């Protein structure tokens, strides 16, 4: 414990450095803006901003990204409550009771409990995270290349299994991402692969280009199919953003339960904030003495999911920092950004880059506090941003995407690749191919191949090593289980449904 306190003190010295405070503030503000803006999700918003991280110290870049990520969460809940438009999937549940509260003129308390619940959840889960991340990283230090390969398989398969309606399509998306990772010079032999004699491709497909194209450009292309004339003006009056002591006491249980559920779900690879928020809401409804009040403007229906999605964000950081395995699109973007800045993620991150890890953890406290202070008084401003018409917003996002891609690489080829990825992403979105596995595959593909090859060097070319080493075997079994889980659950349900009839 003392050791952790020492690390934390160091972390705060990084996070509270004036420059980094500035980045945290910038991230929190821009993140909230992205969260509030209609029609652009947090992943796209973060993707188009990755080019500006170029050349930054990795710790500052991570602090900025964390602020952004947190900010989008806060911003997303604001629009869920006030205009019934969830800024992102993880605040969909919040619309159920949040918008009802706003309609009843209780928008103020709803916003306040979302912010306060998020703050409490964030703070508690950061403590939990500190307790979990370091031991997990220590365990992972025992990993050899075989275990590391199996860990990647587990990371990819768990993201894949939860990603979409069709497992086949999700797997196609995963393999597509892994294939992109094979473009370029093979690091261990120097062979050029899939470069078609184009010199710019020797370095491989740029992560920035793929992320911006697949997430941001495709999202805009899809959204402009349905741009409406005029604005989606909200006629909701917010009222005073505060809540009574009674309302707070009523929600405290929901906040704490939401935190526990959210953190637990967040740590599991792939199961992110969205699932956490749904689960927390359902648990609250189930244990309530008066479940029929839910959906009609019950404050617990806002407190639980908002706490849970924030705790899940923190939980998501555990596998990211300790194992180098992202559990969501956003953490995949963070991982890609780290690698772009020359930081190799993995169990050694805590030792090699304590400024990145502990600075990031400390900056989560900082961002949380900032957002709590910022959001309550600034809600009026954020609401006005909702009035920006989509027809103006979308060209802006596309222009920023183009500037980001070209400005970093100065390469027209990258620009065309980015637009091509936009088109591919557009097709994938329209036809239910999840995007997250593709980006995760691109980010993890290189390390995955290298660790497989190193493992086979050690075993003289025998694949048997992957199942002969107990830890590796366990990871592979977990991976197989995670792919089969949706089917198992389905089968169980059918069995149970059939049982009474017999």
């Amino acid at each position, binding site marked *: 414990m003392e050791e952790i306190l020492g690390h934390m003190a160091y972390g705060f010295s990084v996070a509270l450095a004036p420059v980094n405070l500035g980045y945290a503030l910038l991230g929190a503000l821009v993140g909230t803006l992205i969260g509030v803006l209609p029609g652009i999700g947090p992943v796209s918003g973060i993707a188009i901003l990755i080019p500006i991280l170029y050349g930054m110290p990795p710790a500052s870049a991570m602090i900025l990204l964390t602020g952004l990520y947190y900010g989008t969460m806060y911003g997303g809940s604001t629009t869920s409550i006030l205009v019934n438009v969830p800024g992102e999937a993880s605040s969909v549940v919040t619309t159920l009771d949040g918008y009802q509260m706003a309609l009843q003129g209780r928008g103020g308390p709803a916003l306040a409990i979302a912010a306060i619940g998020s703050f409490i959840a964030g703070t508690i889960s950061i403590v939990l995270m500190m307790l979990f991340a370091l031991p997990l990283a220590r365990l992972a230090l025992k990993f050899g290349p075989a275990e590391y390969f199996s860990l990647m398989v587990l990371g990819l398969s768990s993201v894949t299994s939860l990603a979409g309606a069709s497992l086949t399509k999700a797997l196609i998306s995963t393999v597509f991402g892994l294939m992109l990772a094979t473009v370029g010079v*093979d690091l261990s032999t120097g062979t050029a692969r899939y470069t078609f004699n184009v010199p710019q491709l020797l370095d491989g497909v740029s992560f920035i280009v793929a992320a911006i194209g697949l997430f941001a450009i495709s999202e805009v292309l899809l959204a402009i199919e349905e741009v409406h004339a005029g604005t989606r003006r909200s006629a909701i009056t917010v009222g005073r953003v505060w809540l009574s002591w009674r309302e707070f006491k009523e929600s405290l249980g929901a906040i704490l339960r939401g935190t526990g559920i959210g953190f637990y779900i967040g740590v599991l690879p792939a199961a992110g904030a969205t699932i956490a928020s749904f689960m927390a809401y359902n648990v609250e409804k189930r244990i309530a003495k008066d479940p029929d009040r839910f959906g009609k403007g019950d404050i617990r229906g806002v407190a639980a999911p908002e706490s849970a999605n924030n705790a899940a964000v923190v939980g998501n950081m555990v596998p990211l920092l300790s194992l180098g395995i992202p559990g969501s699109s956003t953490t995949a973007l963070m991982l890609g950004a780290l690698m772009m800045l020359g930081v190799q993620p993995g169990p050694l991150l805590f030792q090699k880059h304590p400024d990145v890890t502990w600075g990031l953890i400390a900056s989560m406290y900082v961002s949380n506090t900032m957002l709590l202070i910022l959001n309550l008084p600034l809600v009026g401003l954020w609401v006005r941003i909702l009035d920006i018409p989509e027809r103006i917003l979308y060209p802006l996002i596309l222009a920023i995407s*183009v500037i980001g891609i070209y400005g970093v690489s100065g390469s027209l080829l990258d620009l065309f690749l980015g637009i091509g990825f936009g088109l591919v992403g557009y097709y994938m979105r329209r036809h239910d191919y999840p995007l997250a596995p593709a980006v995760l595959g691109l980010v993890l593909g290189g390390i995955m191949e290298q660790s497989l090859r190193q493992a086979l060097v050690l075993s003289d070319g025998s694949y048997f090593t992957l199942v002969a080493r107990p830890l590796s075997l366990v990871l592979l079994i977990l991976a197989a289980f995670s792919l089969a889980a949706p089917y198992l659950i389905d089968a169980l349900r059918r069995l149970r449904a059939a049982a009474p009839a017999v």
Partner: protein
Amino acid sequence: MIAHDRAAALVILAAAAAYFLGAWRLERPAMADPLGPSAFPLLLGGSLLLLAVLLFLFPPRPSGEPTQPAGAGTARLGRPGLVLGLLVANALTMEWLGYGLSTSAFFLGALTVLGERPWPRGILYSLAFTAGLYLVFARALHLRLPVGTLFGGH
């Protein structure tokens, strides 16, 4: 939807085959680890071949979403298509016309396609956005944006 997925499966099958062949043809260097540069790509190509066959044989049942009325599909594609064209034009002219002209033309086109009226206001917005983004990204964040060969840049 099912017919569409089958067609997509064929395209994916072809792409996977090409990728697999590309891996097959890779030269195997004399000094290499047991797997070499082609094993992982072969594995991926093989997996995608298998997945494409699975997609063809068992296309996922359409989800419960309401199906679009026939004919609406192509009409809806018009706007994304136009904007995509503008984006390509933007990329094509970026180094020739330079950031300023190319981007403001893109804005004017996109705003008009998305319904910004009257168009003089669109011109005003286009110029303001182009200048604003230049200040933020080129001046404050130091990203390189081209002047344009037309104006003596390179």
